[in-house]
């Protein structure tokens, strides 16, 4: 590390800052240079495309000819024609169905994952024969690609030879009925991600001090009391961060719906599915971008609420 090599003779005293940049300033410069590739990549794949999406959300634009966009303000969001026809996605009942279904999906799947994940983590955290087997088994649903698990479950839900569709329900086409399909999808997501939740909770459990439990045993606190009074409060920070990340994942869900229900039904089952249909299938760059902006705002608002309400600390 060359910090200050006096190349010029010190004839006139230069600005004091320039003469001796100091190791701190030099290291700060190095740090920025090291960060540059990452920052450029983020601007390229996140910053600029996001700016374009926001830009197109206020334009009437077609996906194949984005150059011919015309500014229309907020009409992609809300617009009523002179004949009283409601345009703009906020007046589209399908969007609101998608929002409702996404919220149902998020609330129930995250809740069930947390409860099941907690049960599995508590079981695996206690000593018993076969514990290492179960810890290994836990990783398997998580390692399976989402599309694969969607196909696996679509097969089990199949009404003519599926184990669940034919075997348990006697030939009911679960996925064909929108009011039931959402619960079938929740089951898939819960199966796939419970083990992830369990892993995170397990890591939290293992960082809890063991002697505290010995003391509680001595004092005669029941396991039940110990769980509610000690384990849960101490796990709170780890649990909250896991909840934030799982909720955000669930809100932007796409693959499960798209693979199991097809593009059209997915558009009324997930916000992302609706956005993609507008954007890609209908080629409506303006409307699709407006929907994307709405989803972005919803998700960022939820992040802010979580972080401020629960004082989640990152870092």
């Amino acid at each position, binding site marked *: 590390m060359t910090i200050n090599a006096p190349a010029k003779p010190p004839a006139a005293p230069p600005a004091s800052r320039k003469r001796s940049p100091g190791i701190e300033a030099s290291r*700060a410069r190095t740090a920025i240079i090291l960060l540059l590739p990452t920052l450029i990549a983020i601007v390229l794949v996140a910053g600029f495309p996001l700016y374009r999406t926001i830009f197109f959300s206020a334009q009437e634009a077609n996906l194949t000819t984005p150059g011919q966009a015309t500014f229309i303000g907020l009409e992609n969001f809300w617009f009523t024609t002179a004949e009283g026809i409601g345009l703009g996605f906020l007046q589209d009942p399908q969007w609101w169905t998608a929002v409702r279904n996404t919220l149902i999906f998020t609330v129930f799947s995250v809740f069930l994952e947390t409860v099941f994940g907690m049960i599995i983590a508590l079981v695996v955290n206690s000593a018993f024969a076969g514990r290492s087997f179960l810890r290994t088994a836990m990783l398997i649903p998580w390692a399976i690609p989402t599309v694969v698990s969607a196909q696996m479950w679509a097969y089990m839900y199949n009404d003519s030879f599926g184990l669940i569709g034919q075997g348990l329900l006697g030939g009911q086409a679960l996925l064909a009925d929108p009011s039931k399909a959402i619960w079938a999808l929740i089951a898939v997501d819960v199966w796939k991600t419970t083990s992830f939740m369990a892993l995170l909770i397990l890591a939290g459990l293992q960082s809890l001090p063991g002697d505290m439990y010995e003391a509680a045993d001595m004092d005669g606190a029941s396991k039940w009391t110990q769980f509610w009074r000690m384990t849960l409060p101490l796990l709170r920070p780890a649990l909250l961060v896991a909840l934030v990340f799982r909720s955000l994942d669930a809100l932007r869900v796409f693959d499960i719906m798209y693979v199991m229900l097809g593009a059209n039904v997915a558009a009324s089952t997930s916000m992302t599915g609706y956005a993609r249909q507008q954007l890609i299938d209908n080629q409506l760059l303006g409307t699709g971008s407006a929907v994307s902006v709405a989803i972005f705002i919803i998700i960022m608002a939820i992040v802010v609420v979580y972080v401020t309400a629960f004082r989640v600390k*990152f870092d």
Partner: protein
Amino acid sequence: MNLKRTNPGLFYLQRTLFYLLVIVIAVYLLFPFAWAVLTSFRRAADLFLPPLQFIAAPTTIDNYTQVLTNPSFRRGLLFSTIVAVGAVAVSLLFGSFAAYALGRFRFKGKQFIMYIILAVSVFPQIAVLGGLFTLITRFGLFDNPIGLMVSYLIFTIPFTVWVLTSFVRDIPGELEEAALVDGASPLQTLFRVLFPVMMPALVTTGLLAFINAWNEYLFALTFMSTNRTVPVVIANYSGASQFDQPWGPIMAASIVVTIPLIALVLIFQRNIVSGLTAGAVKG
């Protein structure tokens, strides 16, 4: 343990219930995958059999030969590998630079940069889909694995930076100070001193990022039309008609795509858990 002496009945009841719970959990976690494996070895005609006869039905590897000779599946494997490996390699290189800077250097605006990176990792991919699509088509990268690879950086980069930063922080500072005193430049320090120490972290982070890239569906579906990646191929696998889903081959393809991931996950089990918790619990 004293329950065993004071009330053996209750003790054994508790044990039995506990093991029952263990069995229920194990079946819940493993059964759907086991059923898919079984199906992948059954003939199409046997799929209609009731479960017990289905289990006992003759085994065949036809589904696997059909899938592995299917040109679009093989292309899918190739493109998935190119895209995922490329995205992971770029992310690890950029990510380790950034992690070194964020974990070891003090400078103004560091907190801000960390929050930006965190914000990108909670980004809904749909928010950039339209913008990215117009950029990709403008640069002629539609249906090109490079375009897809670059788009994957949106989730692989924040993840690698975040996890590697927490690993870099845990490396004792003396190592780097010794290198500094010997006159090594920051890049030399990174490559010669920190990289060897960070090897396990790089492997873990790379593996987790690889799994995410391998599984990605939305971008792969949108930015590629003929050069599809395997998740898209599996999702689109269809038979003669819309109502004739070839479940045997679909399951076989699913198993082919999943087995390498499961093998990697089982081999690196310990690292994975630490990588996941560093990435997810800390943020």
